């Protein structure tokens, strides 16, 4: 039986949801998986709702279509909850991870009584504390790794450290902040 995991990301242009989906693909790739990471391209404007996707599997992936029945959904911006049907097709056996500080009651009501697990994380607080600026994609990446068990925390941390070293070779001072954001996110993502 295939262990295929399908993930859908909802964000706004400029928030890094596409980048986060590509980073997740990278991290899973580095643990030996077959991966797909692709955005759904529409009008490319700052602030416009965007969707991105991941497929992750131990076997080669040949399907080339969007994902309509994801195992997991990640919502990078909670202002989308009232305008986009983020739980559309989401499997009850799966989970949704939301960057929010809103109450559980509010979330349940806007998620159309989604029966699967709902996780929240305050990516803004984490990002401001660890990086001093609002980059929600790194904490959200850590949160979905934690929730989906795509890889162990340890594998993920090691992989991210390597990739930050490579990515920020010219400004090593930001590596620690990003690693701190990831560690905080792994600890702080919680089920409601």
């Amino acid at each position, binding site marked *: 039986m295939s262990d295929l995991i399908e993930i859908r990301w909802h964000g706004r242009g400029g928030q890094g949801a596409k980048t986060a989906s590509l980073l997740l*693909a*990278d991290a899973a*790739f580095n643990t030996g998986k077959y991966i797909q990471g692709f*955005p759904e*391209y529409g009008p490319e404007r700052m602030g416009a709702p965007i969707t991105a996707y991941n497929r992750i599997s131990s076997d080669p992936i*040949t*399907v080339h*279509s*969007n994902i309509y029945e994801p195992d997991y959904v990640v919502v990078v911006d909670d202002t989308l909850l009232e305008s986009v049907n983020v739980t559309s097709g989401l499997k009850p056996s799966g989970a949704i991870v939301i960057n929010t500080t809103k109450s559980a009651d509010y979330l349940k009501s806007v998620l159309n009584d989604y029966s699967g697990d709902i996780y929240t994380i305050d990516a803004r607080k984490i990002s401001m504390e660890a990086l001093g600026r609002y980059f929600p994609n790194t904490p959200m990446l850590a949160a979905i790794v934690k929730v989906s068990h795509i890889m162990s925390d340890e594998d993920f941390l090691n992989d991210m450290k390597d990739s930050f070293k490579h990515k920020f070779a010219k400004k090593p001072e930001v590596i620690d902040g990003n690693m701190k954001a990831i560690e905080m996110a792994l600890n702080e993502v919680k089920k409601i």
Partner: protein
Amino acid sequence: MSIRERLSGNEAAATAMKQINPDVVAAFPITPSTEIPQYFSTFVANGNVDTEFVAVESEHSAMSACIGAEAAGARAMTATSANGLSLMWEMIYIASSLRLPIVLSLVNRAVSGPLNIHCDHSDAMGVRDSGWIMLFSENNQEAYDNLLMAHRIAENENVLLPLMVCQDGFITSHSIENIELEEDDKVKKFVGEYHPNHYLLNDKEPMAIGPLDLQAYLFEHKAQQANAMKAAKDVILQVSKDFESWTGRHYGLFEEYMLDDCDFAIVCMNSTAGTAKAVVNDLRAKGIKAGLLKIRVYRPFPAEEVAEALSNLKAVAVLDRADSLNGMGGALFEDVVSSMYVAGKQVPIVNYVYGIGGRDTTCNDIESVYNDLSEIAQSGKVDNPYRYLGLRKGDM
């Protein structure tokens, strides 16, 4: 040893071009192929290649510059999509009639209008009879591999035709997926150097190209192009064989997926073939004998081979990602039907136009085609051979 990597289709194409290290690349940006010359220009700037990069002011000029470079004796490459290819159109014919083995990376996109930047095959279908060899690629791996084989096919002295490698815009061009890359020095060795027999910069042999070619000559020159296109089939197979003994990756004129013992099959090209494979696997698990024939070499069209491969089936569906708007079906459908008829093979066959303008084609869509095929196989009849897949219907 192959190198395990993850790249988008555009990154894969640009990487192949870097490893091929052509003499000249002339290109103009157009979505969704823009990234190819963009990445390549950084390779030039970083000194990874010693290519002359010509930043032209239009696609017509891009192809013109490639023609000039190739005629001069250089190896020239370019990339484009949709309306970019439309603007090249005049020069596309010049390239093939002058027998210049230019290699083009075509990232398939709907030709306007109305304006659409997403995938379909209308751009490729517009030049299907222009004398270019056309290879289609299911994913980033095939786009990469086809480009590595391209020059050896195009530059073969029995061929000498330009060649385009197609892949689906956004669907594979912008999707990050696993890929096996080959080592730079091995690629260089496989591709080899380009030493044309005749070229404009040869001071030992002054020559003229593109002369006036009137009633007494053009016919024969066109027939020569047609003969070269026929000869390309064997060359493609030979190069693919060499490629397989190097990389272990097998390529033929088309891929037969669970076709041997199947009752009915889909014929299609590019990324949809991957989706169809997943559906075939599911159907096989349920005991349904579904199959797939994925066209890799669209020009020259492997007519005899396709007819033979489909001859024992009970029903066939041909999927066209471009509508020919001719009232009788898509281009691939016509090619398959002609192949079958000429070979005297009678199989019920149906056409589906699908995926126009990037309309997503899901496993459910493909499964519905196999369901239709199952009915056709039982009844042996095709009521309406020219159908749509995924079209919103009203009371038509």
